């Protein structure tokens, strides 16, 4: 098991290298000169060349890449072209917001998603099942910014329960987390329900019934563990998506998260910041994938056997 984990962790290194090469190339190929963007409308050619030299933009492409990687390996992620602050500080002042929203949101979507999914499957065709199916269909098809705006209207403007924008304390995370969670949650409900229904039709459930196992125990001991596998997979994918994909919600709730930083940086061709954010998200995604696989192994002995072997 430890061997497997170490192997997977080592595998992250080539992945990160691959991503860095592709990303650096793309940033270089896209039109626009960061130095020119920075310097504004009135400038002399000398000042521009000087700025280029300062940012290291006068060197050939490969030299630039190798310098960047070399410095990054020494913990220096460069200076933001735009703000002239160290990239590391820039990124890490924003990541906690995004991570907080993502994890609050994943807890909401998994807890609610799995519970409602199970109940809907066990009481198939009941009123609750029909209603939850209708609601999930709406939630899955409505864009998250609209949900965010509606939540703001209701809880912040009308009821005044939660802050309207920005992050002053932890209550500021609630609405964005819920807004992000709802569409994902809808999919988790539908997935849990359908896999649960599939599992309940399996022969081993009949075997359990024939043994005289009470219904509750059949659901939680015999069926749920089998039905959870695809749910774990989807939840893992969702986390990766949310880490890089809460941009719209950050705009709606005016949160200085990683999404808005990434968009601004791309627009300004702020290569060092883009590199750092994307690679950080990539590392997190790899770790989450690994965690997903380990949870998988904990649930299913067949997967565990493969990991050990």
């Amino acid at each position: 098991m430890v061997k497997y984990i170490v192997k997977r962790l080592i595998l992250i290194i080539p992945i990160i290298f691959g991503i860095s090469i592709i990303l650096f190339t793309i940033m270089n190929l896209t039109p626009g000169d960061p130095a020119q963007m920075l310097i504004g409308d009135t400038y002399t050619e000398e000042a521009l060349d000087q700025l280029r030299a300062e940012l290291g933009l006068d060197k050939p492409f490969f030299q630039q890449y190798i310098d960047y990687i070399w410095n990054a390996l020494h913990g220096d992620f460069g200076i933001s072209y735009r703000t002239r602050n160290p990239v590391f500080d820039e990124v890490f002042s924003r990541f906690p917001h995004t991570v907080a929203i993502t994890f609050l949101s994943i807890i909401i979507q998994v807890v609610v998603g799995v519970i409602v999914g199970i109940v809907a499957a066990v009481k198939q065709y009941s009123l609750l099942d029909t209603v939850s199916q209708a609601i999930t269909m709406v939630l899955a098809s409505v864009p998250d910014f609209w949900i965010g705006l509606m939540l703001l209207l209701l809880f912040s403007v009308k009821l005044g329960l939660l802050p309207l924008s920005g992050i002053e304390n932890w209550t500021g995370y609630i609405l964005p987390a819920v807004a992000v969670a709802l569409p994902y949650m809808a999919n988790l409900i539908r997935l849990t329900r359908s896999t649960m229904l599939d599992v309940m039709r399996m022969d081993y459930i009949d075997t359990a019934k024939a043994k005289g196992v009470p219904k509750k125990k059949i659901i939680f001991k015999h069926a749920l563990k089998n039905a959870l596998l695809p749910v774990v997979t989807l939840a893992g994918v969702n986390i990766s998506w949310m880490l890089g994909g809460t941009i719209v919600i950050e705009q709606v709730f005016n949160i200085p998260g990683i999404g808005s930083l990434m968009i601004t940086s791309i627009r300004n061709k702020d290569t060092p910041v883009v590199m750092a954010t994307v690679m950080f998200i990539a590392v997190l995604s790899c770790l989450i994938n690994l965690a997903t696989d380990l949870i998988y192994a904990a649930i299913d002995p067949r997967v565990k056997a493969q990991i050990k072997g």
Partner: protein
Amino acid sequence: MAEKLLEIKDLWVEFKTDDALVHALNGVNLTVNKGEAYGLVGETGAGKTTTCKSILQLLPERVGKITNGEILFEGKNIPDFTEKELEDFRGSKCAMIFQDPMTSLNPVLTVGDQVAEEIELHNPGMSKEDIDKRVDDMFKLVGLLPERKGEFPHQFSGGMKQRIVIAMGLACQPDLLLADEPTTALDVTIQLQILKLMKDLKEQMNTAMIMVTHDLGIVAKICDRAGIMYAGEIIEDGDIEDIFESKYHHPYTVGLFGSIPDLTVKTDRLNPIQGLMPDPADLPTGCKFHPRCPKCYEECVNVEPKVYQLSPSHMIKCHLFKDIKEGGNE
């Protein structure tokens, strides 16, 4: 006269799907005495599995429904059982071995846990050590190493899984064991082992058994009595001697025996029963076998045959036997 354990009286079961109403059982009558092995023989789709599932009330919810009849177990009607009574009945009084050992064990629970669960459920207050010991005993009984009880189903072969399923079926020493084609999914050498095992266990524990199969050889080897099933009815029922040695048979039974190839005679072709089992959503009138029956005459097409008692143990549901009186067995 042996003591009746299970008596099914005029059982009708329907499956309601979106497209059709499927008549799965059409008046099944069946009796199993204590300690007796009853063979239920028939083609795929004849209603053998449905009969077993009805006994344990395992018909698919909302779709399958008992529309008429009684299933009496020690005189009590099983369909009237409450949820709690059913849970007590299943596993401890009556257990079932399912057709496919590959899918009838839960892949995420250890095999030992799956056997222990049943013992624990039906013996409340039993200590953990006693349960453990009982599981070990069951494993030994079916010829498996008790040390392997901590392993998961995917670590066992098909024949071993079937042994585990049998161990599970017998763990609480039920009065009645429903074995739904326990050897169909296994290869021939393993089949023999499993059958021998079941026969030995039946004799040791005095468990009554319904052995569902389409293999007449298995019936001859294990069963005391047998019923031939066709299109949701039992068309011939009798002691094993009646089924295998009497000169009077339902034409379908004759066809079944006729389709067994004889190893001592050289023939170019096998001798199957012509045609297919009727669609249970659209059953023929009169005798349900008439479209395939070589001896069919006018009455068969229009009138449903009565059950004729040829001897106290032997009955046939066919118009051909209306003139033969009781005792016509010899």
